[in-house]
């Protein structure tokens, strides 16, 4: 029963948005309505209250007037409540409040922006420094590479210059011709069925290296 009572209270709290002036939760502190009449009270006939006509009329009038008056008072209170939301001054006040809130919000925002700006400046400066160092390192590296390349080229040129001493030029062409004619190199050779290599123009004279050449041809085959 107490739980039921609690639920009633909770629901009444949940359901009403604006708390009514007279809030009277229904409490089941007595016998529940759905239980039958107690056995001892089964045949009890309640005595009706005896009210005289005059008194009843008077009470009727009183209650009628009371209800009418209360209704008009309630209406007035409702009107006041309504104007408390929609009156000119109230609207102005609400607008002022909103403006103040807006200003407050803007203040917070500006502060935040300033904080973030300081942080950003710091970060950007750091990044710039890092970038500069990186570029510097790259430049140095490139310079070194260039130097290495130049050295390699120098080496090649030196070798070429050394080689150029044996070049055939107009001055020593006759000497070279002479030399070539003196030392004729014959690359032609013949080969017989046994695989003997026979150099020179006289084919009947096998060279000394016949056996070795034969061996080589065999391995190739």
């Amino acid at each position: 029963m107490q739980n039921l009572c609690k639920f009633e209270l909770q629901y009444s709290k949940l359901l009403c948005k604006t708390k009514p002036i007279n809030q009277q939760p229904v409490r089941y502190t007595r016998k529940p309505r759905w239980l039958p009449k107690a056995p001892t009270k089964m045949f009890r006939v309640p005595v009706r209250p005896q009210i005289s006509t005059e008194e009843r009329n008077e009470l009727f009038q009183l209650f009628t007037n009371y209800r009418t008056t209360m209704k008009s008072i309630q209406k007035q209170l409702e009107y006041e409540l309504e104007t408390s939301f929609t009156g000119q001054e109230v609207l102005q006040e609400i607008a002022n409040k909103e403006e103040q809130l807006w200003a407050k919000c803007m203040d917070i925002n500006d502060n935040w922006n300033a904080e973030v700006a300081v942080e950003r400046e710091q970060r950007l400066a750091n990044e710039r420094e890092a970038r500069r160092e990186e570029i510097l390192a790259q430049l140095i590296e490139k310079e070194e590479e260039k130097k290495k390349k130049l050295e390699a080229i120098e080496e090649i040129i030196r070798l070429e210059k050394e080689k150029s001493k044996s070049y055939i030029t107009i001055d020593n062409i006759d000497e070279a011709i002479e030399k070539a004619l003196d030392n004729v190199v014959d690359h032609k050779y013949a080969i017989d069925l046994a695989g003997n290599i026979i150099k020179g123009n006289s084919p009947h004279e096998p060279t000394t290296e016949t056996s070795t050449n034969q061996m080589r041809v065999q391995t190739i085959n």
Partner: protein
Amino acid sequence: MSVKLIGRTTNLYGKTLWEILGNLRTTGVGRLVTRNSYNRYEEPSFFKVLSVEPTAQIDDKPRKVIVHAEKIFRGKRYKEPVEIYSVSYKPDYRLIPKDEEQLWWDRLANCKPREKFVPGSIELPPLMRLVLERDNKDSNIKLPLKIRGGRDNIAQTDTTKTALYSPSFFKNQQSS
């Protein structure tokens, strides 16, 4: 035979509408019927039966009946006939004998029409006035009283009058 009532006292004593009309020739069309609970009023209140339409009886419950009747309530004749159905089972009705019918019509003709004028506004309650003064609001206003305009309500608003918010207000408003 003397009747001895046992159990709870009731406001209803008499017969149901079907008990009366079902036993009459032509189901009592044209006859006058009144309710015993209307006896509390000085002015005559009764029905003149125009048409009767019986409905089926359900179990042992008092039978209901659809009756269209001309209603005269507290000396005032309704403009349109009323339908009695949902309250027709109440054992509260009484047939007016034919020789008394003229008497009732005479009573209706002779009765004084009820009149009631009530003030149209009331002055502010003292605490409310104080609250308004505290809040710097207009405290010289009067609360308008709205009177319910039902079919049986005869009270009329007298806008020129203003009721005082005091016990004397109630004393002055006795029914005329």
